[in-house]
Structures are given as structure tokens and as C-alpha cells.
């Protein structure tokens, strides 16, 4: 295997990221079916309800619970991925280790693409681990789940997570600090999320993938997601190409 790819894989193992990220994702995901199951009990035991209050909450379907898992990961999971990736290049430049390594005949493309591959795999691994656990608990606590829809929805959302990884890596190639890279990446994602409804092609924008993944799991997907998936993949590749070009012009 390529030297840099091996190093990146070993790094996520030796720094425990390979365990920490999936565990955090799993907690976020499993929390949804557990919360839905326990919600009536929680409300019943809430101390500040006036006597005689009757709250009726319709029991969500298993698909709706799984859609809520995606919504949960779309906020906190995405944040965690950006936090993990933001120092991948900026951190190495600030610490000086990039100068040690890049004074060797290591191709910049190999340096950047290895990070995309490994952090992309980490994100996908964390996503599917958490979805499988959430699916298991949803089946146990709520009702039977559609595993094919969960896996297909996971695949759609994985494209979006890899896009977030690529965007953060791109900012990490030229931002002076990991925090700035992470902030810029989250800022762009937030901005696109907030302004997407203004665009006529909003259904093609990357943030739409989270919604499609959730709709697929809930069994209510009515539009084609392929356009958004292809555009997101194209932006992902474009981000990496742009990051590489910027990095080539940067001083290390």
C-alpha cells in the first residue's frame, strides 16, 4: 500500500480515532430510538405538569425513527467529522511535521488524497456502525425496520459526509490554524443549508442529501436524489483538486 495511506490508517488506529468517532456516532444514533421509546415515560414523570394533563404522542414508525437518526447525525455527527478532519493538514503545518515529511519525495497529491480516503472511510465506517446499531435498537424498541432502506439511506448520506471531509481538507490546506479550517468548513455548510431554499436548484445541493437519506428510511422518498448525489460527488472532487492546487502554491 502507498506509504502515506498506510501512515494515515495507522494514525487513526494509534490515536484511537477509529474507536472514538464510531462510538460517539453510535451514542448519537442509538439515543434516538431509546428517546422515542422512553418519551411517554419521561413526560409522565415530568414534575412540572399540571394535574390532569394528558399528552398523546403518536408512536413514530421505525422508518421515522431512522430518519430522525439521520437528522441527529446531520448536525452533531457532521460537526464531529469536521472537528476530526480540520487539523489533518493545517495542524501538521502549524506543528512543523509537514515540513519534515514534505522535505521528502512525497507527492502532494498522495499526501492530500490519502487523508481524504482515510477520513472518508472513517466517516463512512462510523456512519454505518451507528446506523446498524440504531436499526437494531429501533427494531427492538419500536418495530421492524427496513434494512435495505437503512443501508441505501446510509449510502446517500455517506456521500454527504465525504463531501464534508473533502471541504474541510480543502480549507485545511491554506488556513493558518485547524480551528479556522473547521470554522470555515462549518460556516460554508451552514450557509449553504440556510440559503438553499432560495435557490431554484435547491434539491440538487449537497445538504439535500441528508433529507433524501431520511425520506428513504422513512419510506417517503418521492424525488430523484441522483442529481444531488452526482453534484455532491463533483464538488467533493473539485474541493480536493482545488485544495491540491492551493497547497501546491503554499509555503510549507
Amino acid at each position, binding site marked *: 500500500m502507498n*506509504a*502515506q495511506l*498506510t*501512515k494515515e490508517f*495507522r*494514525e487513526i488506529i*494509534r*490515536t484511537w480515532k477509529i474507536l472514538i468517532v464510531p462510538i460517539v456516532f453510535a451514542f448519537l444514533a442509538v439515543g434516538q430510538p431509546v428517546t422515542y421509546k422512553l418519551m411517554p415515560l419521561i413526560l409522565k414523570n415530568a414534575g412540572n405538569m399540571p394535574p390532569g394533563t394528558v399528552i398523546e404522542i403518536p408512536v413514530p414508525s421505525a422508518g421515522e425513527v431512522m430518519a430522525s437518526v439521520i437528522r441527529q447525525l446531520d448536525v452533531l455527527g457532521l460537526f464531529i467529522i469536521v472537528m476530526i478532519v480540520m487539523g489533518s493538514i493545517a495542524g501538521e503545518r502549524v*506543528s*512543523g*511535521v509537514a*515540513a*519534515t*515529511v*514534505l*522535505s*521528502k*519525495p*512525497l*507527492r502532494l497529491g498522495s499526501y492530500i488524497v490519502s487523508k481524504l480516503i482515510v477520513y472518508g472511510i472513517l466517516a463512512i465506517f462510523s456512519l454505518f456502525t451507528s446506523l446498524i446499531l440504531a436499526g437494531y435498537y429501533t427494531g427492538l424498541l419500536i418495530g421492524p425496520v427496513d434494512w435495505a432502506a437503512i443501508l441505501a439511506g446510509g449510502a446517500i448520506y455517506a456521500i454527504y459526509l465525504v463531501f464534508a471531509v473533502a471541504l474541510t481538507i480543502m480549507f485545511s490546506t491554506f488556513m493558518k490554524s485547524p480551528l479556522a479550517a473547521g470554522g470555515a468548513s462549518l460556516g460554508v455548510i451552514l450557509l449553504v443549508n440556510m440559503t438553499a431554499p432560495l435557490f431554484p436548484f435547491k434539491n440538487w445541493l449537497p445538504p439535500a442529501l441528508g433529507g433524501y437519506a431520511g425520506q428513504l428510511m422513512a419510506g417517503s422518498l418521492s424525488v430523484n436524489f441522483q442529481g444531488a448525489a452526482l453534484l455532491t460527488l463533483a464538488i467533493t472532487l473539485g474541493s480536493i483538486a482545488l485544495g491540491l492546487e492551493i497547497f501546491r502554491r503554499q*509555503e*510549507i
Partner: protein
Amino acid sequence: MAQIEVKGLTKRYGSVKALNDLSFSVSDKRAVGFLGPNGAGKTTTLRILTGLANATSGEAHVCGIDVRRNPHEVRRHIGYLSQSPVFYNWMSAVEFMHYVGSIFGVPRAEVAKRSEELLKRLDIWEARNRRIGGYSGGMKQRLGIAQALLNKPEIVLLDEPVSALDPIGRHEILKLIAELSHETSIFMSSHVLGDVERVCDYVIIVNRGQVAAQASIKELKEKYTTPTFVVETDQQADIGGLMGSEPWFANAREEGPNWRIAVDDVQAAKVRIPTLLLNQGHTFRRFEQLAPNLEDIFLKVVADNERAAD
């Protein structure tokens, strides 16, 4: 073939000119000291030579390869130690050496053999399996030198290689660098002149981003050193008044209990200084001809350069 050839190298950081039309050439198998005061442009030059920084204008060739056009190829031929080498803290020294070896495409068995040889030579073999994060500054510096030598480079670029070391470590590493200079070319930046004098046979002195002087240490000593005597007498002596009219006398300055007397004619001064003092009834505690040292030369070259620039 010149191992390093720099022509008209200029580097600007905003309005600051770190390098100003820097030109020099280093030929095969030499230990070259790259000297200069802080901010003279030493680190910038080394970073440009490794392709880590880009020159604003000018050319740099290493081993005959244009650094700007083909930095990747240049890096195959060099070993580089930055001023404060940083590594992946989660790796061990052996792992890092294998990582570097795999970047160079060196077979694993050969990396293992070479790593053992280098880590033993640099006295970090015992700590080879410990995480680098737990290493002292000196150990990291040693590992920095080991990784710079792994690919058997044609030239090793060392940026202040002993700055982080204690006196014992400094002595050992300088000894090692001196040994290495018989195997490969060394280009070592430093502002510790004693270190350079111990290791290098040729020096390039830079100031304000330009070459102020370059020659072998021997040539520089011949060119720049004014023969000097140090005299300490039991009684107060007025050296200037006593010797000012002598034809061999250049100048004299008082330094604590000593007088430093610069002369133009060593042989005449050797006879006349003691004679003149004894005739005045002075007795000696010390009378010594100073060996010329690089520090005096460096200060003189930089002062001359500053005057010329102003």
C-alpha cells in the same frame, strides 16, 4: 558539478526582503558552514533549497536540478533537518524511519538495516520503540539527523543542527557531522561560530539576505584577521602612549585587566612589546599571541557589510 548553485535569489515577505539577490555555489564533498546573524536569511535559503518555500525571483539548483521546476526530484537527493524537527508523536523512532524509507521506496529489509545502523550511531537505539512524543529535544534532534541520512543523500542540509542540545550532546553531534562530511556533503547553517569552525572547512557568511563573504576558513583567517596580542601587566600601563608611534602598531583596546594589541608586523611586535614594557619597569602576568578565530572574522565581515549597506 556544483552541488548547490544559487543565482540572484530574492525572497520577499510583504515589504521585508529576506533574501536580496543571494548568489553562491557549493561544490562536491565539502562541509560548508552557512553563517549569519539572526534574520540574515539562512533558514529561508534552506527552505527554498528543499522546495518548502518559493523564491520571489532567482534560481536555485541542487545536485544540478532546478528546485523550482522539480522539487520532488531534488528531495530524492537531499537529507534535511529543520531547526526544530517535529515528528508524528504517536510513532516510534523505528516506525518513523520505516515511514521515511517507504516514501523513498527503499525495501523494508534495507530500511531495517540502515535504521539500526543510524539509530545506534546517534545513540537512540535503546529508545527506538518508545513513542517519539516522549522524547527529549535532544533525542528528537538526533532522530532528525538519522531520518535525514536514511536515503544516503548526496547532500545533507542542516538548519542549526545542535541548537537544542546540551554541551555533551552538542559535542557528540558535531563529531558525528564532522565524520559524515567525509561520506557526504554537508551544508550547515548556524550562528554558533565555534561549532562551524569545528566541523566545516568552507563558510558562506550572509547578512541582510546577501553573501557578505565566502571562502575557506583558512582563506578568511588570512584575509580578515589582524594579528593580535594580549598583554596583562602587574601595574597599570598606558599602551597607546607607549606604543602608538611604533610602525608595527595598529590599535589597542583595554579589556578588563588585559590589553588587546592589534599589530601589522608580528615579528617586530613580538620583540618590541615586551621590550617597551620592560623598559618602563612593567612586569607581565600574560603575554600571548591570539590565534585568529572565526568569531572575530564573522563580526568584522558583518560590520563591514553593515557599513557598506548604510
